[in-house]
C-alpha cells in the first residue's frame, strides 16, 4: 500500500451499500469501506459503461508512477448525481477519493472527485 498518500477517516459512504436490498452487480466486500484514500492523479482512461463506470489514473509516488483502477457505480446513477460521459478526459489532473481494495492491489471504489477546475462531485475529504 505504498500508494497511500494521505489516509483519511471516512466521512460518508457514497458507494452502494453492501447489504440487501441495495444489491449491486457484485458484493462490495472486496473494498475497505471504512478507509478513504486521496489520490492526486492524472486520468488515463474513463470508461462510461455498465455494469460499472471505471476511471484509470496514474499516481506519482516517490518518482514512480502507479496505475490505479477505480470502480464507480452505474453510469445512470452517476448521471443522476451530476456526472456525464464527458466529465473526464485523458490527461485531466484530478484528486480522487476511494475506498481501497482490501488486498492491497491498486484499485478502489469511487467516493468523490475534485476536478482540475476545482469543482467537485461525490464525497470529498
Amino acid at each position, binding site marked *: 500500500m505504498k500508494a497511500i498518500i494521505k489516509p483519511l477517516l471516512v466521512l460518508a459512504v457514497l458507494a*452502494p*451499500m*453492501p*447489504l*440487501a*436490498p*441495495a*444489491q*449491486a*452487480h*457484485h*458484493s462490495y*466486500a*472486496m473494498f475497505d469501506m471504512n478507509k478513504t484514500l486521496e489520490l492526486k492523479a492524472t486520468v488515463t482512461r474513463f*470508461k462510461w*459503461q*455498465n*455494469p*460499472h463506470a*471505471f476511471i484509470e489514473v496514474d499516481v506519482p509516488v516517490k518518482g514512480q508512477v502507479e496505475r490505479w*483502477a477505480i*470502480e464507480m*457505480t*452505474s*453510469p*445512470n*446513477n452517476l448521471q*443522476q448525481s451530476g456526472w456525464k460521459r464527458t466529465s473526464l478526459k485523458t490527461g485531466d489532473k484530478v484528486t480522487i477519493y476511494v475506498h481501497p*481494495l*482490501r488486498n492491497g*492491489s491498486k*484499485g478502489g471504489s469511487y467516493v468523490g472527485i475534485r476536478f482540475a477546475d476545482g469543482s467537485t462531485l461525490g464525497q470529498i475529504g
Partner: protein
Amino acid sequence: MKRTSLLLFACGAALTTAGLAHAQSGGSLPPEGLQEGQGAGFAKGHYAELDALPDWGGVWFLNRGGNTGQPKLKGDYLTNWDAWRAEVAANNGVEKRNRSNCSPPGMPRIMQLAQYPYEFIFAPGRVTVNQEAWMQTRTIWTDGREHPPLEELDPTYMGHSIGHWEGDTLVVDTIGVLDTLPFSNGALHSDKFHVTERLHLSPDKPDTLVNEMLMEDPDALAEPFKVTVTYRRDRYGVLYEFQCSENNRNPVSLNGETEFE
C-alpha cells in the same frame, strides 16, 4: 398428387379442435386458463383500456436504505445458511460465487437493485418490467392465464409471473424460480418458493412506487418473509445499455473470489 391429398386429409382428420387452434395461433397452444383467441397475443382492440391503469410513466430508481430483515429459515435451509454465514465470516465478509457476476440474481432480488433503474410497460394482457440491470426483461401476464402445473414449469431466473389489478395495485404471483439463486443474503429456497408482490404508487407521494413482496416456502421458510422496497420516479430518465461481457472487470476466480481488473 393423390398421395399428398390423402396425407393432407389424414392430417386434417387427426386435428382436433385444439389442433386447429394450434395451427391458427401459429405453433403454441393457449396457456392454462385461456381459450383460443384470448390473451396478450390478441392485443388489437384493447389498447384504449390501458388508459384506466395508474400513471407509472418514467423510470424508477430503488430508494436505498430499505430494511429487509432476515428470513426465518428452517430445516436444511437453516443449516445451510448457518454454514454459508460462517464461511463468509471466515473469508473476511466475502461471499464466494459459483457463477459469473455477469449472471443476474433472478427473482426476487432483481427487483431490489440500487444501481440500475426499472420501467413498467403496460400492454393489453401483460405488464413488462424492463430492467437496466443485465438488460433483463420480466413479463407479468395479466390476461387471465394461470400458472402451468409446477411439474411442467421449467425453473428460470425470473420464474413464471401472473398478475391482476386490484384497483390501482398490481398484484403479482410468481412461482418457478430456480432454487440455486439466493433470495436474501445467501438464503436459498426450494422449488415451492412463491412470491406475491403488491405494486402501487404511494398514497401520499405520487412519484414513489411501492413494492410489497411476500415470500412463502413450505420447505425453506418457517414463516412468510416480507420485504418492502420503494422506487423513486424520473420522468425523463432512460435505461442505459448493459452489456456485461463488454465491461466485465469483476471476473470470478476458480475458487469463487470476485476479482478486480
